[in-house]
């Protein structure tokens, strides 16, 4: 094949691809006939909710299916070769060589027993693309290009010795090392903090541009995909909803579903005036063992309002919640609740005090016992705190289910039979069952898809209206804060950086940290990242 011809055929051409997955004793269609075309040097963004089939499609682009899945129809042409017809051995000669993969969780994807540079270069050396010396040399360049600190030394470290953001970049270097024609990025920044995400995104984008590599970028975050992709394909239920160049897609989405995805970020709420405080933390210090995590933390929570606590992981926001619930007794300071001081430990608190403060967790999956039905999960607080039994209890459980926009059909379901959003709703119902005054929401929407997030946030807001609840909303997502909070507390490294009403915190001048945090939140503008990098450099 001559060079000019090679440039004319698309690098990747998928036609009518159908993939089935085996679950619950049957084959189910996961991908229902999707077409995809990718030219050299292009970046395609794949977006959709979880279960839309985006990861399955991404892997299929490499001719790979996960265990329990099978390709039942269609073709995948990589440079004109149909991958579905190739033997596994043939396909393996492509993997790690011509096409590479960047997984969502870098921490889980590295072998903890080997140095980073060995893992970065192993496939390059194995395929004889470069010898060891040249591959190591090249890896140092890649580390440098990805803005990793101390590029000539960092490769000698082991995976646990670098941070999550660094590990994700090393993984990108690993994917880049054999100079592939195609890279699949599978939600590479989802697990990272906003400020880290920006750095990882910039370095990924610049390296993809530098080597003119084609890439498929899988994510559920629209703002992220807007920075990375030349065109965007929206998937739902294993089918294509629409595909268009990024700018056109952002400004003029055609389908209703796409529009609804876009509209989520516009959820706004009127700020409420601050009442008297129902909960206040007075100069709280707390530590895990001998290492202190909270320093003189003061937080005021006005009655009937939503206070958002923002910060990156490790900022101490979840620790503050643990102090309030009594799981982690503070070493100094007082927690005041409704005029009284709360005892430090859970054991010293009365049942009534426990009832009035409820908590909703980030991962609804692990917050519900997988062996209990919805009836048991919601019913237990009713029985435990309010001594409800039999008919009365069932009636109340159904009432609660209706409050969270579900119905009596869900009574006998197990958590495994619910979707992510439904699980979180059940957790909300469990908290509501105790008739609380104060609910701590710990990152309740961060594991959910945008459209589901919106639903949950709306539900929380309307419940607040109806029942006069007070929320302490812990999150790292600034757009969620904008959407629902009245008061904002910004935390960093165990200290409160800024605190006040939403308008005050979000309008300049900002303290340096707030500024960094706010400016790192991706916007739905394809030029945002370039502009940001330009302004940060200057």
């Amino acid at each position, binding site marked *: 094949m001559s060079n000019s011809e090679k440039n004319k055929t698309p690098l990747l051409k998928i036609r009518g691809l159908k993939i089935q997955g085996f679950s619950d004793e049957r084959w189910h269609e996961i991908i229902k006939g999707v077409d995809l075309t990718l030219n050299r040097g292009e970046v395609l963004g794949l977006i959709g909710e979880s279960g839309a089939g985006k990861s399955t499609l991404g892997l299929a682009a490499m001719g790979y299916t996960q265990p329990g899945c099978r390709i039942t129809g269609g073709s995948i042409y990589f440079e004109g070769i149909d991958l579905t017809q190739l033997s596994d051995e043939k396909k393996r000669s492509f993997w790690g060589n011509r096409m590479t993969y960047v997984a969502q969780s870098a921490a889980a994807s590295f072998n903890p027993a080997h140095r980073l540079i060995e893992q970065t270069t192993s496939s390059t050396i194995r395929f004889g693309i470069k010898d060891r010396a040249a591959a190591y040399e090249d890896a140092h360049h890649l580390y440098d290009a990805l803005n990793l600190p101390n590029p000539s030394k960092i490769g000698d470290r082991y995976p646990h010795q670098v941070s999550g953001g660094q590990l994700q970049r090393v993984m990108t270097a690993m994917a880049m090392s054999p100079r592939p024609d195609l890279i699949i990025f599978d939600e590479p920044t989802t697990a990272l903090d906003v400020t880290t995400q920006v750095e990882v995104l910039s370095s990924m984008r610049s390296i993809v541009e530098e080597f003119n590599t084609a890439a498929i970028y899988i994510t559920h975050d629209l703002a992220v995909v807007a920075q990375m992709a030349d065109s965007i394909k929206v998937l739902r239920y294993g089918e294509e909803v629409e595909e268009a160049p990024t700018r056109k897609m952002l400004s003029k989405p055609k389908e209703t579903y796409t529009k609804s995805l876009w509209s989520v970020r516009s959820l706004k709420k009127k700020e409420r005036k601050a009442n008297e405080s129902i909960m206040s933390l007075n100069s709280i210090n707390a530590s895990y063992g001998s290492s202190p995590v909270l320093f003189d933390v003061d937080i005021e929570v006005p009655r009937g309002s939503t206070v958002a606590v923002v910060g990156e992981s490790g900022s101490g926001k979840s620790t503050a919640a643990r102090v309030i619930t009594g799981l982690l007794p503070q070493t100094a300071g007082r927690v005041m609740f409704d005029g009284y001081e709360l005892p430090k430990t859970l054991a010293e608190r009365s049942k009534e005090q426990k009832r009035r403060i409820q908590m909703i967790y980030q991962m609804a999956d692990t*917050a519900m016992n997988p*062996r209990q039905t919805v009836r048991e999960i919601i019913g237990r607080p009713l029985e435990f705190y309010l001594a409800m039994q039999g008919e009365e209890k069932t009636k109340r459980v159904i009432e609660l289910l209706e409050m969270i926009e579900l119905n009596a059909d869900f009574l006998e379901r197990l958590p495994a039979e*619910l979707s992510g959003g439904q699980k979180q709703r059940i957790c909300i119902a469990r908290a509501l069952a105790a008739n609380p005054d104060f609910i701590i929401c710990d990152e309740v929407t961060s594991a959910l898809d945008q459209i589901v997030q919106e*639903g949950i946030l709306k539900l929380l807001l309307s419940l607040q209206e109806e029942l006069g609840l007070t929320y302490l909303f812990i999150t790292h997502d600034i757009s969620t804060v904008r959407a629902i909070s009245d008061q904002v507390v910004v935390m960093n490294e165990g200290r409160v950086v800024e605190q006040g009403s939403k308008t005050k915190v979000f309008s300049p001048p900002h303290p340096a940290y707030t500024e960094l945090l706010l400016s790192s939140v991706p916007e739905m503008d394809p030029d945002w990242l370039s502009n940001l990098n330009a302004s940060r450099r200057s």
Partner: protein
Amino acid sequence: MSSKNQTYSAATESSTIYESRSRWQRFKLAARKSPYTARFGISIITIYAFVAIFAPILAPYGEAEVFPSPYEPWSSTYIFGTDQIGRDIFSRMIYGARNTVGIAVLTTILSFLIGGSLGLAAAIDRRWIDQLLSRSVDVLMAIPSLIFALVLLSIFGSTVLNLIIIIAVLDATRVFRLTRSVAVNVVVMDYVEAAKLRGEGLGWVMRREILPNIMPPLIAEFGLRFCFVFLTIAALSFLGVGIQPPTADWGSMVRENANLLQFAQYDLRAGLTPLLPASAIALLTVAVNFVVDWFLHKTSGLRDE
């Protein structure tokens, strides 16, 4: 795209494809797909259980009934002959199923009650309770258990009750370790924290929140432990400190009839006699292991690919 996909509603949100099935339906499905080894194991266990339960009806003679003719060869009157003092071996085999298996089951249940509850308590309270229990278990496990059991039985006397308690306690150490290690992974789950926040007591957290989630490995372990207990009892009986005569038991039957082996050159069937209780032990152990293997395979979520 169909129109139903256009509007969002929480109740119709797509979840993992999963069909609600009753326990019975799930059992039937699993049984239909079970490998032949597991079916073989289940049928053997059923037969043993049947024999154990209906022993008095099935056995032609009494358990300790002595006939005037010792070492009787195999015949239509005494199917497997008689032993050294003239008891019918076939009848004693049948009663042996009841005694040996019954005592082994009781012992295993007891060891799971002790080891399981202590293991759960240690997993929940990771401070001094855990330290105390784990270190005591380490001490107990440092002593070879068969020798330890021999010593204890010689001290306290070989009654059935002592036998059950001593083997159960010694075996509970292994159950403790398993329970603790699987429970530790469940204890850190948010739903356990949620239950503690609610103010639930230790008993509730143990029984309702943790136990249901660690059942599969425990059930598998129960099968394996049962085999070990069973073999230990047989070994102790063989050594003479286990189940005492005249109670029929397979381990001591092997010992009592062991010298018949040398007569194999004259009468093959006489030589086979001590092997009968031995193979009864072996068959049950193999059968239980087949079932446990299948169960472990199912719960580990491995696929055949």
